[in-house]
């Protein structure tokens, strides 16, 4: 009973918040509703018994990714509303129709759900975190290490890309703005 109530509550709230994210003109509103929607998605994971995944979602998405976005917000002018030119409706209709067609084909495709067998079944009486740890560090060890190297590469790339000319302000001082936008000392 509680599961049903939680499921419908979480799905309605998540879809509403993500609609705000997609439709809003203000960057701060979009970012805040995105963070709230991600918290609710971790609620889905807890309902589904994937405790460790829910905790990782909270730490990585709501903690790290949203903090990164809000730090990036300091570089851009976040208080101004975003003016977006609407694309021509013919193209939007064409793309939307094609996407709907693909979605219908996917749902209409026959599903061989009886033929699916668990590759790494969950163990009875073992917690989710232990189970995840056993599979992650035996069967998925090499992807895990590759993901670690990928995160290191991404961190170095982020530091190098964002770290240039860090001492000059982008939004506060207009003279510094002109200096950056039209570099005089370009070699």
């Amino acid at each position, binding site marked *: 009973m509680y599961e049903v109530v939680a499921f419908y509550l979480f*799905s309605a709230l998540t879809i509403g918040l993500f609609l705000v994210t*997609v439709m809003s003109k203000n960057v701060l509103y979009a970012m805040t509703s995105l963070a709230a929607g991600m918290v609710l*998605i971790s609620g889905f994971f807890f309902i589904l018994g994937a405790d460790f995944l829910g905790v990782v979602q909270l730490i*990585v*998405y709501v903690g790290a990714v949203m903090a990164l976005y809000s730090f990036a917000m300091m570089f851009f002018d976040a208080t101004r509303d975003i003016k977006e030119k609407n694309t021509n409706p013919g193209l939007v209709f064409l793309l939307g129709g094609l996407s709907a067609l693909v979605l219908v084909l996917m749902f209409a495709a026959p599903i061989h759900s009886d033929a699916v067998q668990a590759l*790494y079944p969950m163990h009875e009486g073992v917690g989710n975190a232990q189970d995840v740890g056993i599979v992650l560090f035996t069967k998925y060890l090499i992807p895990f290490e590759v993901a670690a190297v990928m*995160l290191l590469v*991404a961190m170095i790339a982020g530091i190098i*890309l964002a770290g240039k000319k860090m001492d000059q302000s982008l939004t506060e001082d207009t003279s510094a703005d002109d200096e950056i936008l039209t570099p005089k000392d370009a070699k």
Partner: protein
Amino acid sequence: MISLTHYLIVSALIFSVGLVGVLRRRNLLMLFFATEVMLNAVNIAFAAISHYYNDLTGQMFAFFVIAIAASEVAVGLGILIVLYKKHGSLDLDDLASMKG
């Protein structure tokens, strides 16, 4: 009772919301937000299938999706900052330099 189909329908709805965002947004930062929405929708589907088939593979894939999303955000925000320093805006129409 909630079945796998319910979760998959919710996941497809959230994915469609993200797809609409990718199609109609012209600002690069908002485009990134829409991408995050789509990645989260896929994670819900992975976790639901993992639960209903009693299989841990779905959760493993969800972990790797989260790792890829985190590194994508790090590199993407760096590129956005460089673009903003160069052009002064994040609008895709302003960034188009080739006339075609």
